[in-house]
């Protein structure tokens, strides 16, 4: 058993932490990045590339660094601490994940080096209005026509879908809406004829898009992975994304905990610092308990996201998400409460962490949804 980072991982952590601190340490800068045309900073994105973050999980032959789940955890935690707004999750974790696990040699050779150098951005067009969190609930269709396919349907809440160059689209090549079989993934240029995107800001300061596909023609080479067998691939990549998001949430909670404790030590009421009130001390202590429980589960999720057995992987990642959600809600709500009115303002950073944590709760499955997955796995977490 070993929870320590290797020397190399520590080096990575130091450099990522430093970069994010420079980029986001001054909270005003985040506002400036969000005001840029894409809703995030292209200059920073270049820095991500230069530091090797955009190639982190990919093989060296594709310009990557061969990093694993722990390396991703290190980066995501830093992004969470900075409340970064760049499309790392959408491009590297989700889009990159599909290419790594499902892409053909040719697709990998073409696209991965471009991700790593920062010239290709991806997004995962999956969610549909009726589907909620069920990954197999897909009404969008891809019908064979000639030697290619025609895609029709509507996808929603596509994270960073508005600034993506290519979309990984899940569509039905056979079966009906809630069948587990018959789902196929496609790589579709975002500017393909028939693709309409409506971008918008999200509650937590990031970006999303509704994307309609109307008579969108793609070739056979757009197919990602096996035809009709998309679901296991989706589940795998989404579990990796959940592990990554868990680390991001830990980074956000960590920053919020620090900010709150600093505030308790400085804010004066009744002639003393409010941190001297035992009621608040206990609450801050409970926040730390919640944070550390979340940190443990983020580590667990990172390690288990690479498990060979999908059943084990799913139960472990679901369990982590439940803990992240519980901790995130507690830390978020209590940090606002302990600050008082100041945390209710747009100007102050605490409220923004709270909002991000709230939105992470509903990302790829809320607490009830993940809890159901843990319960359905029965004896996977604790065996007799």
């Amino acid at each position: 058993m070993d929870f320590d980072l290797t020397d190399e991982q520590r080096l990575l952590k130091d450099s990522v932490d430093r970069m994010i601190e420079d980029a986001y340490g001054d909270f005003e800068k985040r506002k400036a990045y969000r005001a840029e045309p894409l809703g995030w900073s292209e200059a920073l994105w270049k820095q991500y590339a230069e530091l090797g973050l955009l190639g982190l999980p990919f093989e060296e032959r594709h310009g990557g660094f061969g990093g694993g789940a722990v390396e991703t955890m290190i980066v995501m935690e830093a992004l969470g601490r900075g409340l970064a707004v760049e499309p790392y999750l959408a491009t590297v974790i989700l889009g990159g994940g599909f290419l790594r696990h499902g892409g053909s040699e040719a697709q990998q050779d073409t696209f991965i080096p471009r991700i790593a150098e920062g010239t290709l951005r991806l997004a995962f067009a999956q969610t549909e209005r009726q589907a909620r969190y069920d990954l197999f609930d897909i009404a969008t269709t891809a019908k064979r026509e000639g030697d290619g396919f025609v895609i029709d349907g509507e996808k929603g809440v596509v994270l960073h879908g508005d600034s993506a160059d290519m979309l990984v689209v899940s569509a039905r090549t056979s079966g009906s809406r809630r069948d587990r079989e018959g789902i196929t993934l496609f790589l579709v240029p975002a500017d393909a004829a028939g693709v309409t995107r409506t971008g918008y800001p999200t509650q937590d300061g990031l970006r999303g898009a509704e994307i309609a596909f109307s008579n969108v023609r793609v070739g056979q080479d757009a197919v990602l992975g096996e035809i009709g067998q998309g679901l296991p691939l989706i589940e795998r990549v989404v579990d990796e994304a959940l592990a990554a998001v868990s680390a991001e949430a830990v980074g956000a909670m960590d920053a919020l905990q620090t900010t709150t404790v600093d505030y308790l030590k400085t804010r004066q009421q009744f002639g003393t610092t409010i941190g001297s009130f035992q009621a608040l001390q206990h609450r801050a202590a409970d926040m730390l308990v919640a944070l550390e429980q979340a940190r443990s589960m983020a580590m667990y999720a990172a390690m288990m996201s690479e498990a060979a057995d999908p059943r084990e992987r799913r139960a472990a990642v679901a369990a982590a998400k439940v803990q992240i959600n519980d901790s995130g809600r507690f830390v978020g709500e209590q940090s606002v409460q302990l600050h008082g009115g100041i945390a209710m303002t747009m100007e102050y950073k605490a409220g923004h962490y709270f909002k991000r944590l709230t939105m992470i709760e509903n990302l790829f499955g809320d607490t009830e949804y993940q809890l159901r997955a843990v319960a359905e796995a029965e004896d996977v977490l604790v065996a007799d």
Partner: protein
Amino acid sequence: MELRYTPDEIAFRDELRRFFRAEIPAEIRQRVAEGRHLSKEDIVTSQRILNAHGLAVPNWPVKWGGKDWTPVQRYIYTEELQRAAVPQPLGFNTAMVGPVIAQFGSEAQKERFLPATANVDIWWAQGFSEPGSGSDLASLKTRAEKRGDKWVINGQKTWTTLGQHADWIFCLVRTDREAKKQKGISFILADMKTPGISVRPIITIDGAHEVNEVFFDDVEVPLENLVGEENRGWDYAKFLLANERLGIARIGMTKQRLARAKRIARETPMGEGVVWDDPEFRRRVARIEVQLKALEITQMRVVAAQGRQDASKPDPATSILKIKGSELQQATTALLVDIAGPYALPLAEHDREGSNEPEIMPEWAETAAPNYFNYRKVSIYGGSNEIQRNIIAKAFLGL
């Protein structure tokens, strides 16, 4: 012991129920129900209709437009008003400054302010909190000095709710810097148009402009704007806060929100059916309903005992209603976020009405997350929940 209303009370309730739905414009009530921001006009329109029917300020003395109602009738009024999603009459006017002027003001102040306050011809703001004085309100520093026939006010107030609409502001100001902190405070009224007053917006995390900073820079107000006696302002402020007691739990609003959440859950797709089909979800709603019922009965006990309790004994009732009431308001706003699921995420930047922009999400989901964020305030303001627990522990339990 009897839970049911008398036939008279039922008739009273039914009449109010009919009145609110018939007389207050449906589109205003819908905006309240959906948790959308109300314009100044919405609030004024609604309150003027109430006032025209003698229903804006039932808690005031009869002479000034109040009603000679029993505590149960007042309770029914608040409950029905909230359940019908009628905008709450402006609390600064009806629950705060109005009763203070009616109780402690001069005859001239009553004549001048009360009718206009009931009808929101004057919109009041509450100038109590300061950057350095939140929970510890008595430490406030904004000062008023007597110079000739004027008070000269200097300092800063903050968190001034809807101060951008205000015609007048009632302030707690320090008038004696030597006295013990509670003893040197006075209650003064200021016209917002007085030179030296400036207002700066504070945007809250839900993106709304609901609160403000108000700065006082050598603001001169006539001596007659002092309410009651000099240096007795703290007593008036305590009187004012105690007045809020019945509305504080907002049970009617929470019921209304919960009923709406259930309605939406019955229409929101999930799996083969809708969210409401999920037994886990229904159990969660049931748990909130249980707590809400407990609070409702607690509130009724408080109502039924009104006027009978010994005023000299500390009473934890207000604090209980505030703590549980705020927690349940927050629980129901969180519930709506969870029903919205993935569609809690988009931020609607446009005003839906009359907009041609493509629809991003179900209309009701637009306010889910912003309301959840915004409602964190209810356990912070009006005496935070920590302060309420201190009150129970110290004043009631003697700890």
